[in-house]
Structure formats: C-alpha cells, structure tokens
C-alpha cells in the first residue's frame, strides 16, 4: 500500500527537504541483509551486494553484509562469499535459534544490529523472506521502506532514490526516505545484474551472539518440505527462455512454445493474458506482476510487449521478438525482430534448431 501518486508530478509537501534530525546524522554505511536458505546464500543477496557497492562508493562509505544462522561453518562460508562479492564488512549473528528463518528472531537480531551500528541504507531481497522481515523491521524502527524496487540511485544530496513500479507496472515512481534512518528498500531477484566475483577478496567480521532463549520464542518450525517440482523456481534463473502471448491464438498452440523450449533446453513462460485465460499457470507468468527474468536469450512469440511485460524481460541480453504486427511495442525494445506468425514460425524454428544441433553433434 504505497502512497497513491498522481501521474505527472510529486506532492508539494513531499518536495521540500527538511534537515535530517540530529540523532540520525551518525547513521552511515550501506548494508545488505543476506538471505540464507539451507546453508546457502540466495543469489539475490549477491545482486544486492553488487548494487550496494555502487551506492557505498558514491557515498564514500563501507558496504556491509548481515548474515545470520546457526552453523558457524555455513556462516563463515557465507561471509567469505560476501567479501568476494565486494562487502567490506560482515556482521555475523550466530545462535541455535537462528537455524531456520523465523520473523521473531530475525527481526530481533536485525533491529538490534541496526540500532547498534546505525547504517544509513539497508537493503533486502524482495523475496517472501525479505518482505516478511523488512516490514516488521521498518515498523519497529519507525522508518520508511520502499518495497519491490527496480532501480536504486544516490541523488545529488546523498539520499537514496528508490524507484519502483506502481499501478501494476504502468508507471514508475521514485521514493525517498529523507528524514528517517535507515533508508530501507527491498529489491526483486534478477532485477539487478549479478556482479563479478573477486576471488580471494577479504574483509572484517563483527560477531554478534544474540543469546536467544528458545523458550521465549512462540513460533516453532516443525518441518520444511522442499519443492519437488523444481521448475517452479528456475524460470528467473534460466539462460534461455521461450515465451508465448495471445498471438498464439489458442491454448493448444502454446505447445509450440514448449516444443522449442525443449529443443533449446530452455524454460518457458507467457504473458499475463495467458494466465488470465488459463493457458498457463501463474508461476509461468513473465512480467511485472509475474517473474522477472534475465536470460541470455529471450524469445517472445506472439507477445505484443505491453509495458508490464517489458519490465520483466528488459534485463535479457538478447531479445528476439516474433509478431505479426510490425507496430507491436515489443519491437521497440527487442534486439532482433521478425514480422511473422508465431504459429507457423515456431515449428520451423524448432525443427531448424534441432537439425543444426544434431548436425553439430555428428560432426564433433
């Protein structure tokens, strides 16, 4: 429930910048709250470190990561990775009660660290975990939080300018937290590029033992059932994605998308209207309200390229658009385009790819 902005201009009261209250002036440095799942760092945290590095350099401050968990070995490994992804400093919170993510414990630890070490910017992934945690931390700290950002900047006055889509992706708005600290933002996975890893890079560790009394914590984790259907999560991370839109004309024709994806070893998805029509399930939806993807190659078949779709695919290295309408907006942002009927081109493309791969295999 963000503010409801009017298009075309900000709010007059909001435009005036007040002096930051004295007690917030000590807040310094950029933090990333690292998300761990089963001992491994979620890649959104590395993406955030890459982005945090830029913000920290612009502010001339340090970049810190917060890791929390139970196993020292896992925490050390996570910290080492954070350094390699350019953190200067790691706050390492270790406690048996932190074995699994729970809002109560994580909120308590992160709030304590913020109040003790006073960062000016705190970034989290806009995952289920990140959103669960960010909301309660921001409320506890009574500071501003900009959720689900797609772009982070430091403005000329040194404030965090967090840009996020609004109204289902039809508009973007830039949001500031001028008079409160820290400035908090969550960022969606795959929106920021994965930064380069600097092997052997190291940094400082500040340890924190919260000494949580498990008996005080009401919520217990009874079980964790891992997804067997692993394809649910793989779409955002696939190297090649083939997607279809209404130009396919029927649910049956969507099979043509799947066929090409299979030959390419790719993931498949579709535009929002396809979900509304029930041709594909919601977890296959690509776009602002679905999955954001950053594949090397993205093939959009019969997708017109409404803005809400565009936001989700802009990070792709190479976008190929197939559409019958030469004026379709997708040709405005695709790299390669062909005016053709996807229903006839897709099978030909599938066949041609399969042939070339087979020939190459025989030759090698």
């Amino acid at each position, binding site marked *: *429930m*963000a*503010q409801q902005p*009017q298009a075309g201009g*900000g*709010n007059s009261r*909001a435009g005036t910048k007040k002096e930051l209250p004295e007690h917030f002036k000590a807040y310094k440095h950029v933090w990333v709250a690292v*998300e761990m*799942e089963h001992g491994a760092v979620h890649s959104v945290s590395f993406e955030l470190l890459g982005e945090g590095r830029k913000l920290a350099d612009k502010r001339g401050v340090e970049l810190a990561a917060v890791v929390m968990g139970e196993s020292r070995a896992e925490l050390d490994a996570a910290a080492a990775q954070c350094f390699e992804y350019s953190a200067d400093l790691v706050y390492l919170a270790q406690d048996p009660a932190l074995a699994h993510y729970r*809002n109560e414990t994580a909120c308590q630890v992160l709030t304590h660290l913020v109040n003790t070490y006073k960062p000016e910017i705190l970034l989290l992934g806009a995952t*289920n*975990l990140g*959103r*669960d945690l960010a*909301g*309660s931390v*921001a*409320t506890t700290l*009574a*500071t*501003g939080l900009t*959720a689900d950002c797609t772009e982070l900047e430091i403005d000329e006055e040194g404030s965090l300018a967090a840009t996020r*889509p*609004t109204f*289902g992706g039809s508009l*973007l*708005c*830039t949001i*500031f*937290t001028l008079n*409160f600290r820290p400035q908090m933002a969550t960022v969606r996975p795959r929106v920021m590029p994965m930064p380069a890893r600097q092997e052997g890079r190291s940094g400082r560790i500040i340890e924190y033992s919260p000494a949580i009394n498990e008996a005080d914590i009401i*919520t*217990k984790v*009874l*079980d*964790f*059932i*891992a*997804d067997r259907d692993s394809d649910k999560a793989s779409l955002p991370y696939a190297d090649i994605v083939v997607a279809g839109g209404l130009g396919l004309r029927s649910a049956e024709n969507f099979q043509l998308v799947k066929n090409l994806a299979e030959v*390419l070893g790719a993931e498949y998805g579709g535009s929002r209207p396809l979900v509304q029509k029930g041709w594909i399930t*919601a977890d296959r939806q690509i776009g602002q*309200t679905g999955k954001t993807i950053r594949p090397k190659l993205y093939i959009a078949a019969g997708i017109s390229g409404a803005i809400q779709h565009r936001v989700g695919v802009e990070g792709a*290295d190479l976008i*190929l658009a197939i559409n019958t309408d030469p004026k379709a907006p997708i040709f*405005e*942002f*695709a*790299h*390669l*385009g*062909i*005016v*053709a009927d996807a229903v006839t*081109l897709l099978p*030909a*493309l599938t066949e*041609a790819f399969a042939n070339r*791969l087979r020939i*190459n295999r025989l030759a*090698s």
Partner: protein
Amino acid sequence: MNQPLHSVVCIKQVPDSAQIRVHPVTNTIMRQGVPTIINPYDLFALEEALRLRDRFGGKVTVLCMGPMTAEDSLRKALTFGADRAVLLSDRYFAGSDTLATSYALSMALLQIAREFGAPDIIFTGKQTIDGDTAQVGPGIAKRLGYNQLTYISKIRDLDPDGGALVVERRAEGGTQVLQTKLPVLITMLEGSNEMRRGSIETALAAARAQVTIWNAAAVGIEDLTRCGLRGSPTIVKKVFAPGARSEKAAMIGAEATPEASAHAVIDAIFGRMPAIEAQLFETAAQAAY
C-alpha cells in the same frame, strides 16, 4: 478458549490495475472507468476466515481503510458472508504509506477489540495489487504484538481452546510448517481457497446491513501527525512512465518459407551472440552422451 473465535479481515478497495492505462500522448494515468474492486488477494484471506467460522463458530469482522466509496467493497464482503463491516475513513489518512497505514489500521483494530472483542486472528491478503508492497500486514503484527505468519498457504490445525495453530508457509524453495499460538496475523497466499457465493438470505441481509464508519478520532487517534502524508516517512518525489529504449529491434526480413525464415532467425541470433551458439552445442553434445 472461552470466547468464540473472532477473526478480523483487513481488506483494501483498489483500482483494478489490469484496467489501468497510461495515455500514449499525455503519459498520465487514465483513471476514468477504472473499476474499484476488493484487492483480489484479500478474498483468499476472507474465505479462510469464513471457513474457520464454519468450523469453530464465532464472528468475522471486515475492516477497510479508504474513502467513503469503499463501503461498496465492505458490503460485498458482507454478501460473501462476513458478520460485520467497519470502514475507517478520514481525510487525514490520505497519502498514507505502509507505516502510516499500519498505524491507522492497528488503531482501528484496537477499537474493534474494545467494541467487538479482541481479534484472535487478523487476516490480510499477501499484498495489494496497487501497491504490491506486502508490508502492511507485517506492520500491523509488529504494532499489535501479534505473531506474524506471512504467505500462508494452508491452516493445518487450530485448537481454539488452547490457541495452538499449525500452518504451512510458502518460503523460498519450499514450504515451512510452523507452529505458533493465537493471537496471530496471517497473510494468505493466493490460490489457497476459492471464494464462496453468499446465499440469498446472506445477500439480502448484506444489502440492508449497516456498515460501521469510524474516523481518526473514533479509533482514538489523537496525534494526526502519525497519519497520512505527515505520518509517512517515505516521500514520492517523481512519477513517470517508463521511457522508450533508444534503439529499436533490428528486423529480420521474413523469407518465402517458414523454414527459410527460421534459418535466418538462427543465423541472426548466433551472429549477435556466438556464446549462446557455443553453449547450445555444448549442452547438446553432453545430452548425446
């Protein structure tokens, strides 16, 4: 538990964002004719509350903060089967961000506790479709000191007497099974249930029901600087339509046959990105063995 179960469902009236268009010429939001609906995610929360009432008895109260026109959404919630509806409406709430919203709602929830009994479960949808933040639920839980359960896909077990609760929570890469105690705040995941249709009796009662309307003062908000724009630490400085990319697609001329076109397309892809060609052949070669 001696008291019957009391669930409060927080709903929001939102513009149907699928219907919002930005005008191609003026780059402004075309709001005319964009219908307002109950935030679709909130319907999963409401249905879950109604199901608990079916099983354990008690009452379901719906709460909505918004303009006076939000009464329509509350009445619709009554048609689905909620027992009572509260509209929190005051011009001082205009421009609230998530922090100010969760403050106002938590004050209204305290007032609900005083007038209708303390809520055992507060439900919200996982997020709204206009703001998409998913932050108001956690904010309310923190302010009221309720246990926070977000992205809940299933309520496995509830012991209303002992207050114990077991739920399934959608986490990254899997499902967490959590055990906790009432009172709790639950944000429901989409697809966890399907909204019912109220009976003719329910619909008739809803059409004639009185919606309780409270302003800031009625819920005990004295410090208005905690509300609306003044109570919002975040400031929207700029709203803009996404800009066009400077470079348009390089067009591949369609050939006489789809086969010829397909080869032209593949040549163009491999020409632009030799790495993908290499990767494809490598994967294909591996698959062969």
